[in-house]
């Protein structure tokens, strides 16, 4: 479970996230959605343990991401928006590197790598160096890298961005499977159909603040429409006006 309580984070005079609270529960897929610059990436980076909150607290399975960063990170698998591959390493070497950093090794790690390559339909690129990979291929490697230690909490930033239809479907099936296994999944996506098809709960943020939160049914009922895009737009328009907070991170 991921708990964010009263999170505030600024970059010099720029307040990127302001008093944000949300909970991503085990056995659920929680969607964090918002317009560009709403503070999603900053929120994720605080959860990852990369940025220190100015105020508030973030816990992963009860571990504070500042005071107990390593323990929290061991419970976390993340797909950041920038995939950041090493051009001279193969897909398999990427996954092995991160598996070893997570404490895995030997036949167990090899088995996990093979299993992920098969599951993500990337056996054809497993032993190719990453230079020249398509965006979809990069995403598959980054996803496998994030999941190799089978984390209990998974954060996925735009998890199907750049994938073809078949691969997108496979990734969605994988996300649902992780949810069904009792894991906590927190995703960010701009694709409303994907959000609608995947998420059990949604948190909508704008200008670094949470403006709506609930199950899809609750949000639809509140907005009086079944069209999630209309729910999203309507929620943003109803949000209290503030000077736009540029997301610096």
């Amino acid at each position, binding site marked *: 479970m991921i708990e964010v309580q009263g999170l505030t984070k600024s970059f010099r005079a720029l307040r990127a996230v302001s008093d944000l609270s949300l909970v991503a529960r085990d056995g659920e897929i929680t969607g964090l959605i918002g317009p560009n610059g709403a503070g999603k990436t900053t929120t994720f980076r605080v959860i990852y343990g990369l940025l220190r909150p100015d105020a508030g607290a973030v816990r992963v399975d009860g571990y504070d991401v500042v005071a107990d960063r390593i323990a929290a*990170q061991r419970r976390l698998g993340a797909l950041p928006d*920038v995939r950041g591959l090493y051009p001279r390493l193969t897909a398999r070497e990427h996954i092995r590197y991160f598996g*070893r950093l997570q404490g895995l090794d030997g036949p167990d790690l090899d088995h996990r790598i093979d299993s992920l390559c098969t599951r993500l339909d990337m056996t054809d690129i497993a032993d190719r160096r990453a230079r020249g990979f398509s965006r979809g291929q990069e995403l598959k490697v980054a996803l496998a890298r994030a999941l190799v230690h089978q984390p209990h909490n998974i954060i996925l930033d735009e998890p199907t961005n750049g994938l073809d239809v078949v691969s997108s479907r496979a990734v969605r099936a994988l996300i649902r499977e992780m949810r069904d296994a009792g894991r906590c999944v927190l995703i960010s996506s701009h694709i409303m159909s994907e959000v609608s098809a995947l998420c059990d709960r949604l948190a909508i943020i704008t200008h670094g603040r949470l403006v709506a939160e609930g199950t899809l049914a609750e949000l639809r009922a509140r907005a009086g429409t079944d069209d999630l895009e209309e729910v999203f737009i309507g929620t943003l328009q109803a949000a209290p006006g503030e000077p736009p907070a540029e997301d610096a991170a």
Partner: protein
Amino acid sequence: MTAVADPPVSPWWRRVVTVLRKEIRDHTRDRRSLVLALIYPLFGPILISVLLDVASTSFDARTDRPVVAGVSGYAEVPALLDFLSRQQIQLVAVDDAPRAVVRTGRLPVVIEIPAGAGRRDSFTVRLLVDSSRVASTAAITRVSDAIAAWGRAVARDRLAARGIDPTVIEPVRIERLSVARDANIALFFYRMIAPLLIFMVFLGAVYLAIDTTVGERERGSWEPLLIAPVRRWELLLGKAGAAFVFSLVTVALNLTVFRIALGVVAGNRPGLAAPPELAAFAGLFAVAVPLIALAVMLQITIAGLTRSMKEAQIYLGLLPLLPAFPSMLAAFVPFAADWTVAAVPLLGQMMLFGRLIDGAPLDLGHVLLATAATGLATVLVFMVATRLFERERLFFPG
């Protein structure tokens, strides 16, 4: 996919080794890293060896090596020319434009004998030389010395014919004896090993230091790496360890090529002093090890603080120049072997390098002090770097 237990927590050193292995694997596939580590170390030894070979030819004034000299006024003093020929000086008649012959380098020296010189008791010969041509120095000296010797021989004969002891006009004779270890130019070139070695220490892993720090940021790979449960000092140690291994290889290669190339040159020129012994080269490598550790830690730290790979290349390109100046100076004026010098990181190693190359004995206390001082400096830089690597602005400078 089913929920599983957390993987076991691995010891810190396994994470360090994982990062180190990854960086070495990654950079052995990188052309730029390999060129710096494996090709650049060849240049210094080859350059010094070629220069030594050229210089040894130019300054070699041994009388058993033939030299060629031009003569203007060839028929004037046959006895002088006979004498010079017996001194292994090959003479060539030069009747037209003798100055141009020297200026263009066709001959190192031309002897101008004035008309009617053979009929006079005393005459002046003029040596046409081009003093800007270092390569002509040996020939000029040989010819000049031989003419002077002939003059002394003629004077002695004339005095003897008059019943006078020839030593009357030669109360003082000069005999040169160099007290340098092997009495030749090679020692100067051997002293150039130290500054070039220090340059290699600061060059071998420079691209790796840049690519594994600011390069991670430019590539966007810092973020996934920092999400992994690895402490910053472990990452730093793994990356510095990889750079250390690259620099070790560079320095070992550099010293090996130095020993081989200088050995070949000295072997082909019997008059040259032999290069330092293999044991001295092993000593140079051992003394360089703590310096390599300090160099890579400085490089990783500086590269991590820069905003871009280009900026890092500028700063790390300048870094080797700092030790290069004192080390070049030390090649001409070796540091005194004292405790103060030994206690200063870098200077201590320079002093030890100088003594190893000169074949002088090392004081174990100096070695330990220099190693400890440089090791301590490395630890201090590492501690500072660890604090810097904890700052979020290092990874997300926006």
